[in-house]
């Protein structure tokens, strides 16, 4: 099976298993097999019973035997709800994988990946595949220990990790300085950081690199049905349809396709 290709989604009730704890309170929670393997950048919807809406999470690591993990940032009700379910031995309902994944790089292009502020989960499978295919440089930026948590999981063949600690969007700036016209750049970051990247790449006269941006947007259905997660298109083909759906047309968008910031 082509690991870059999005599979059909499925639905499963799975019990959260082992938990690893990282710096800054970041948690990695294991789940047993039950869902098709996600393509890089895809997400799964997780119903934790704490809200009328499920939560979109990008699977982090793929485990031997078909299980997977979720990487959870410390703050927020979803984490508490998931841990409470785990303590009670209760399953949670998940469905996915969903959404448009990162595409493979063009032949011969150098690959760069960028994570800011701890948004590294969407990049794990991506950099693993890029590392196996010929190599990738992963820039990780942030100003907090939690932003650099779980980086040990990225010590993979062909993956070079470069940390950039500081304010602003230091990993974005480093990648912009390094990537050339024919290269490809993949980014997962808060929207202001993606907007910075998008603006820089869209400057008149700038040629490349090609870039793909993984957005983090509140969603309802996750399956492209409800129109609850609109993202403004930069150049809508029909002015009466000015939005893309983050869940079905994204969450990965080519740079320049949607209006950010």
């Amino acid at each position, binding site marked *: 099976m082509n690991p870059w290709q999005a599979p*059909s*989604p*499925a*639905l499963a009730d799975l019990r959260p298993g082992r938990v690893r704890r990282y710096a800054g309170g970041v948690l990695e929670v294991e789940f047993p097999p039950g869902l098709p393997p996600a393509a890089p950048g895809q997400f799964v919807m997780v*119903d934790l*019973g704490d*809200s*009328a*809406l*499920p939560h979109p999470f990008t699977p982090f690591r793929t485990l031997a035997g078909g299980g997977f993990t979720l990487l959870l940032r410390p703050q927020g009700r979803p984490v508490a709800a998931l841990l409470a379910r785990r303590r009670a031995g209760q399953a949670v*309902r998940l*469905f996915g994988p*969903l959404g448009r994944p990162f595409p493979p790089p063009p032949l011969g292009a150098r690959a760069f990946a960028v994570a800011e502020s701890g948004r590294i989960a969407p990049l794990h499978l991506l950099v693993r595949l890029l590392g196996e295919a010929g190599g990738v440089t992963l820039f990780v930026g942030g100003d907090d220990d939690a932003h650099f948590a779980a980086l040990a999981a990225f010590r993979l063949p062909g993956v070079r990790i470069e940390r950039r600690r500081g304010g602003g969007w230091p990993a974005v700036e480093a990648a912009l300085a390094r990537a050339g016209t024919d290269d490809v750049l993949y980014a997962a970051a808060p929207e202001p950081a993606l907007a910075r990247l998008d603006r820089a790449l869209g400057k008149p006269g700038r040629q490349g690199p090609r870039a793909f941006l993984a957005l983090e*947007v*509140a*969603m*309802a*259905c996750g*399956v*492209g*049905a*409800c*129109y*609850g*997660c*609109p*993202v*403004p298109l930069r150049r809508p083909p*029909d*002015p*009466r*349809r*000015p*939005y893309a759906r983050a869940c*079905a047309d994204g969450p990965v968008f080519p740079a320049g396709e949607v209006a950010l910031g």
Partner: protein
Amino acid sequence: MSAAAVDLGRGLRLANPVLLASGPFGYGGRYLELFDPARLGAVVLKGTSPVPWPGNPPPRVAAVDGGLLNAVGLENPGVEAVLAGPARSLAERGCTVVLNVVGHDEDDFVAVARRADLSPHVAALEVNVSCPNVPDGLRYGTDPRAVAGLVAAVRRVTRLPLWVKLPPAPPDRRALARAVADAGADALSLVNTLPALALDRTGRPRLGAGAGGLSGAALRPVALLAVRECADAVDLPIIGMGGVETAEHARAFFAAGARAVAVGTALFRNPLAAVEILAALEADPDPQPPPRR
């Protein structure tokens, strides 16, 4: 028997009384890969206007205690695209397709109804006079005379069964229901979302449109009252909706006077909610007293 076929008027007989409500299911999306909507009594498509509507700016959804606020604003690709695309493909999958009709004015409603009447893929129309998320959404849904005029105008251009979706708390619900019945409606859909507001910590609205419509568990008691009062007021079949998440909830709506139920917001947490409710009703058909009508 609560899972048996139901008659919703004007010759429309559904195989079972569990429907998908207009909105959360949209036009299907990838829900179609997770369950087969043809197992359900009917699928009510997302609100459809004569031409494409852009919908409201983001954010459009916000979870709140006891439910969900949405202000999607009826984004849709217009009636021609809906009839040629999802209405046709869902009907060809074996679904009974109901088109939810929206408009800014009577001409809009009539235009959609007239066009849908020509389609072999639409089994009924649900005239939506109660969306709180567009400027004219409640123009008709609170005034018995205005809604009667609208329903009569739509009635004149279609032979399809005509359902009218009413708001959860109009000033005089019984008068509204009677006006709709007298104007030629075949069934009532009760209820649409309840106008509501969610603010963030800084006091700003959490939705891009400002206010939105409340759905989910918090709406259920409001909807039950609406169903009970309208069932007492008019002799029309009622499709009950608002926080239907389990078979027990469906039975409560039947007990209040609904002939069918529609599942909406519950799909978000559990895409199988509607088919699981149907399966539970089939497995344990009638633990409650039968419906009153």
